[in-house]
């Protein structure tokens, strides 16, 4: 080619008649084309071969397209793209949806069970299964009339069936709808293992728990930051000779008072709850309107026994603790503009038999009378579809590592050993 080009150049530089050079170049190009075509001949057959391969390749592509459309299906079996709990319905039942990380930090600074928090840390995402009890609860919340006194919902079921996480799911729905969240993650923690039990500063026969109260107020502040400046106090609260909160101050100041001054933090909790109760149903429309969601896990602690002792070594009644007393007042339905979501729990409860799980057994007579009437929501073990979904989720997150657990027989063994109980399955898969 180069040789031919040099020849052409020489011809041009000679300055012969243009058309002759033109002819020559054309002739040379033709020659080159001929050579190219001769070179092309084997490639023509190659092209044919390529075409043949392409035709089969097209078939392959067609097959690949089919599998590509089939592949997302296993993913969509256990995950749903609907991240807003307001739009969850029976169609997403058994599928996992992800908590946005920002919401986890704000809404659940203390609310999630410790093993679930570990799972979030390990998998780098917080996924919760959409299950019928939570869907039921959310549908009731959607249809309730908030000008009437609040409905009390009690989630009950055997240990490890998913009461706490269903409560968290419903709470996420409330948060996305802009409600004010009052979440006590475990009422049992307030009736046992208290290091400092101070006699109350305001009333003689009561006992304060400063550490628990101030911890709870800190978490309350994180969850409901945007409400704290809007709600104003309706009464003057006197804490000590020199400290008091005037009427009309924002709620944020009250909360700060409790966080900074540990001594009066339990009374501050009571004041905060009272303010919220009074103002929840007050303004129905407009700027200051808000709906109140009171979520208590382990409600049976409020009416059970404590393991705390007074100074004369007699057992403390739950009634004598300020925090419990104020919570009980909250559980009454003499206010309006919100909902009370509760879950029973035998795991942390004191002096209750391990087999007890029904509301009657766990709440006791006093508790049942106080809570009645309530809407019971039963939570049970996984069914076939939910178990399948959980199994696929663990496979996807690379959690089931033992080769036998990935086989059919291993799956049957897991079903047998766990009886499809969510928490037992989780603990089993942890070391497999």
């Amino acid at each position, binding site marked *: 080619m180069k040789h031919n080009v040099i020849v052409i150049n020489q011809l041009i530089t000679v300055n012969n008649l243009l058309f002759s050079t033109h002819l020559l170049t054309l002739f040379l190009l033709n020659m080159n084309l001929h050579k190219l075509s001769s070179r092309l001949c084997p490639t023509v057959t190659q092209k044919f071969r390529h075409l043949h391969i392409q035709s089969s390749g097209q078939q392959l592509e067609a097959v690949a397209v089919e599998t590509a459309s089939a592949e997302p299906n296993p993913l969509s079996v256990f995950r749903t793209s609907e991240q807003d709990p307001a739009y969850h319905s029976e169609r997403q039942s058994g599928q996992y949806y992800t908590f946005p990380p920002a919401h986890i930090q704000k809404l659940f600074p203390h609310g999630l069970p410790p093993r679930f928090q570990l799972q979030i840390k390990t998998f780098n995402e917080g996924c919760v299964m959409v299950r019928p009890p939570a869907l039921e609860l959310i549908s009731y919340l959607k249809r309730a009339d908030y000008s009437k006194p609040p409905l009390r919902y009690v989630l009950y079921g055997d240990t490890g069936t998913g009461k706490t996480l269903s409560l968290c799911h419903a709470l996420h729905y409330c948060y996305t709808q802009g409600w004010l969240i009052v979440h006590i993650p475990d009422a049992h923690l307030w009736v046992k293992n208290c290091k400092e039990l101070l006699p109350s500063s305001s009333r003689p026969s009561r006992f304060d728990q400063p550490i628990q109260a101030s911890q709870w107020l800190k978490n309350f502040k994180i969850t409901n930051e945007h409400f704290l400046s809007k709600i104003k106090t309706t009464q003057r609260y006197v804490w000590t000779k020199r400290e008091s909160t005037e009427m009309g101050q924002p709620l944020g100041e009250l909360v700060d008072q409790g966080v900074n001054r540990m001594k009066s933090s339990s009374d501050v909790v009571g004041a905060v709850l009272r303010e919220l109760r009074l103002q929840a149903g007050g303004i129905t429309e407009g700027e200051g309107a808000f709906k109140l969601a009171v979520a208590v896990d382990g409600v049976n602690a409020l009416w059970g026994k404590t393991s705390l002792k007074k100074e004369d070594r007699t057992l403390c009644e739950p009634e004598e603790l300020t925090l419990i007393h104020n919570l009980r007042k909250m559980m009454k339905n003499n206010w309006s503009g919100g909902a009370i979501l509760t879950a029973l729990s035998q795991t942390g409860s004191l002096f209750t038999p391990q087999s007890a799980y029904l509301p009657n057994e766990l709440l006791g007579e006093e508790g049942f009378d106080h809570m009645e009437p309530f809407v019971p929501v039963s939570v049970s073990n996984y069914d076939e579809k939910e178990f399948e979904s959980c199994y696929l989720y663990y496979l996807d997150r*690379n959690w089931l590592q033992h080769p036998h*657990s990935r086989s059919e027989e*291993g799956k049957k063994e897991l079903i047998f050993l766990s009886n499809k109980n969510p928490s037992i399955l989780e603990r089993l898969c942890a070391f497999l």
Partner: protein
Amino acid sequence: MAASVRHLLKPWTPSLCLVRWSRYNPYYLDPDPSKDACVPESEISPEQKELQELKTVRPIKAALSSDTSSSFNDPLISKFINMMMQDGNKILARGIMTQTLESIKRKQVEKYHKSPAAKKEEIECNPYTIFHLGLENCKPIIGLASVQKGGKSYQVPVPLTDNRRRFLAMKWMITECRDNKHRRTHMYEKLSQELLAAFANEGNVVKRKHDLHKMAEANRAYAHYRWW
């Protein structure tokens, strides 16, 4: 025929009394709890056929209560649990083992999910393979035995049996975690850290193995004192 079998099954005492010995007559075979897949007749080698026939005829020892027929049963892990057990508290030892496996898996899976796609293949997430390979890395190849010659005792380099090597690796792992770590950490935490280090050929147990190898290398001259 019956008389000869009766002679074999009589209550038996060994001719040489050892400290820890099984009271079973050596005629008894070991139990094999695993569910063997039914292999068709043609594929079994003649030795295996003999073994199978033996199993149908000979008496078999009773199985331990810690053996399961499921494929999750791992003899190495059972042995490790037995070695960790104190005062017969098998439940506690097994709990520690499961917590160890869980914490190893958590650390590795966390690393897996946080690493970019290119590096995901290199991270080993299976706690069982980490346990097995980590223990392999701790097994010494050559050991030392004390031999008395001419009034003086010498440390003589000596080959070790498989059982002895496995025992030494596990023993070192457990003593290292019990003694040389911070008092307030849980056993499962200490074990998981040490196993992950052994898997990467680092850590105190692997160092101890290397020290033993160096000692054996140093005492190479006395190798001829071994007569077995």
